[in-house]
């Protein structure tokens, strides 16, 4: 049992570590609320990778060239890999992948709302790479310096791959824009649909994001939602110009004074409705994941039963 004095000392140590931008490691003492927040955030990130396999995975079968099929298959596979690292990071905090999968498919934990929008053309594969992975990178690069060690290290690896994906997505769109009129129209239509949901990926405006302050104090988060959103817009506008697509925001313009772009607000009612589960694909995504999990139950059981038999045989052999 830890006495109150010990606890105060541990808390002080923890705060010092965070303040020095050092890492908290699995065996270090940490406040229960911190642990819970990290688990929730990492789990949500892991779920997003896994659910994020679906909207793009749906197009592997229809990829219009073998080269694009290989690129897409490898990308979706990377997402599964990211899910793996991240679930491993939660395991260092004593929460298993099975437990988290249960929370995902029962709706107890969330994933990024962007994946509740449908992918409706092959251009969407490019747009997801460009805008969605682009927004994810803006969110995630700072997380490489997040205070929880295993999470930060996973993020370093993930960010490297994500920026590769982003370039591939942008390159697909570039290629399509050099193609036929129909292809150019596909790209524009896709950007029209994904622009606003991409902006929503940074979460609600700062004044409607009550948890940000605590997460920043703990070094889990390092920038506010609106800061990251601004960074994303500023980064993306010149890319859109180079691509010859229009971003569907009449309020979007360069503000000389601020040295940044002004831009309109996404439809936050739509955002909350998607978060609450009424987005175009929420039910479908969860049902897909649940079906895969349920359909695989007998395989996981077989693997465990076989492993048990193996180990009891080797015990007998050594006995």
């Amino acid at each position, binding site marked *: 049992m830890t006495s109150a004095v010990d606890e105060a000392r541990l808390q002080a140590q923890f705060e010092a570590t965070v303040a020095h931008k050092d890492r908290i490691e699995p065996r270090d003492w940490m406040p229960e609320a911190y642990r819970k927040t990290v688990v929730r955030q990492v789990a949500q990130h892991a779920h997003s990778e896994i659910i994020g396999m679906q909207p793009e995975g749906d197009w592997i079968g*229809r990829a*219009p060239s*073998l080269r694009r099929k290989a690129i897409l298959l490898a990308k979706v596979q990377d997402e*599964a890999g990211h899910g793996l690292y991240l679930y491993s990071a939660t395991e260092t905090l004593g929460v298993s*992948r099975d437990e988290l999968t249960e929370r995902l498919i029962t709706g107890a934990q969330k994933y990024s709302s962007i994946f509740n929008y449908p992918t409706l053309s092959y251009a969407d594969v490019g747009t997801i790479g460009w805008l969605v992975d682009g927004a994810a990178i803006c969110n995630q690069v700072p997380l490489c310096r997040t205070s929880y060690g295993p999470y930060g290290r996973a993020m370093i690896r993930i960010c490297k791959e994500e920026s590769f994906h982003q370039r591939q997505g942008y390159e697909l769109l570039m290629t399509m824009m050099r193609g036929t009129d129909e292809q150019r129209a596909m790209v524009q239509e896709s950007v029209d649909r994904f622009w606003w949901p991409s902006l929503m990926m940074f979460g609600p405006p700062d004044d409607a994001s009550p948890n940000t302050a605590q997460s920043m104090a703990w070094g889990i988060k390092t920038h506010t939602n609106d800061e990251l959103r601004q960074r994303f817009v500023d980064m993306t506008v010149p890319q859109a110009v180079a691509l010859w697509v229009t971003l569907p925001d009449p309020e979007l313009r360069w503000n000389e004074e601020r040295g940044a772009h002004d831009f309109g607000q996404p439809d936050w009612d739509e955002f909350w409705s998607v978060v609450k589960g009424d987005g175009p694909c929420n039910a479908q995504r969860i049902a897909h994941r649940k079906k895969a999990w349920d*359909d695989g139950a007998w*395989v996981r059981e077989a693997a465990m039963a076989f492993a048990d038999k193996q180990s009891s045989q080797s015990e007998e052999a050594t006995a």
Partner: protein
Amino acid sequence: PAVLAAYCLMLGDDALVLSQRISEWCSRAPDLEEDIALANIALDLLGQARLLLARAAAADPAAVPALPEGSPVPDEDRLAFFRDDTAFRNVRLAEVPNGDFAETITRLLLFSTWRLALFERLAGSRDAVVAAVAAKGAKELAYHRDFAARWFVTLAQGTDESRRRALDALGALWPLWPELFETHGVERAAAEAGVGVDPASVAAEVDVVLEQVLAASAVERPEARPLAGAHGWKGRDGVHTEALGGMLAEMQSVARAHPRGQW
């Protein structure tokens, strides 16, 4: 060159079609590790297919479907996306639907055991490209076979349910097995020309490998008889199961909608 092209199409189509099937598992596998492993296998096969289709196109440009003038679609994609199913030359084992995980594993076991034996010999092909593809591919296929064999044994020796499913899978696929060792005219000609391998010539050695896996699984060979063709025509002749047409309808849909598209 026509023989070489036709032979490369056969081997390329085997890989392309099975890759397409396996990639259907993406986001649907029993656990993340298998999801990643199956995607990897699909990627390996896709890579083999691309090299072999490109070789076929180079060896015999007449084998490549024509498209509207000025179409930028490369040869490998013309072959993959602009042939009808009767022009596909894969064995039927590659095209049948995935079924459950046991059926997918069992198919992969049969397919990769057979293809590995072919590729080990093809590494000595007189065609340098085929030889190189085979040498690289053999390493990949050895991994695929080991993955499939490990899972087959696991399922066969796991729970009652998994054993039942493994046995059902083997029974369902067994009628497609003999087709893999029937020598098609193109294969015979390619073997005689020293660029290909007669599949009948690897039957005995494949059998030994498969027997080891079955023995470790305590599974006996099913009784099922070979699946007939139409007038003797089977996959290598372009006479497939109905499943291939549906698969290609999906696979080719975007490419066909944009015959002048760039991707």
